[in-house]
């Protein structure tokens, strides 16, 4: 019975740890030189707004923690 009670708590703890991992990976990615060498916008709506205002184009670079 104790195992049934402990299992959801363990799963919740694992999920919270995973979320923290993802946050840490994002932070690490954004600290890489390529992220600061360009005046990137990080917010999609903001990028669209600026492109609209200047009749410009959005150059969107999609990456992940493990990718270039």
């Amino acid at each position: 019975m104790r195992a049934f009670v402990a299992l959801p708590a363990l799963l919740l703890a694992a999920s919270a740890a995973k979320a923290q991992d993802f946050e840490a990976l994002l932070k690490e990615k954004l600290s890489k030189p390529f992220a600061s060498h360009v005046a990137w916008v990080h917010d999609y709506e903001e990028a669209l707004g600026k492109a609209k205002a200047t009749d410009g184009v959005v150059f969107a670079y999609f990456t992940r923690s493990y990718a270039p």
Partner: protein
Amino acid sequence: MPLLHVTTRIEDRPHDDLLSDKADRVLFPTVIFMDGQGEPLAVVPDLQTVAKYDALLGTVRRYLELRKRRDAGDETVATDFAIAACELGQVDFDELEADLEGVKLSEEQKARVAQLRVNAAVRIRFLITRKQRNSEESLKAATEEFLKLLKDGPEPDLGGDEERMFWHLVWRHGHGAGDVAAMERALKGMRRLAADSDSARAREFLERLEKELEAAKEAK
């Protein structure tokens, strides 16, 4: 407007799935040129050189200008608009060719269509060889076609893995047959593809090819 998007799987993060919303295939890295409404104009998987991104940006701008004129009722831009859409990968080359049937093209348009034809042929060969797990037979067929393309038309300007395979096979042929001209062209193409690379491995690879080219020249 440069937008940096990192896909994270963080729950409830706004637009975390933006790439899968905008592109058919989710590959990292991918660059997408979009207009101010968020409409994807060109989807470019694989890492490209700055020169290639710059050229694409030029094509995107030309496409947007043509779109504006077309939307305003200017029918004279129809052909250039169709070609630009194909250059951005919005339309397959077969579809473009069908659209252009019977249309009189200017010399500049003919050159752009010829470039697209070569790129389409290389792209198809790339897919075939990959599907056939780079079997020697598929590589041989690709090499034969690539040498013919190289003789008859412009060089491919796809960038990325597709063009890399093209030059690799041209090099392999040149090296095997002692064809110095083919080796020189292949090396030039591979250098262009690696122009922005700071990889020591890529540099060593090119240096090795350089030495092999010199040896082939001396053996002549």
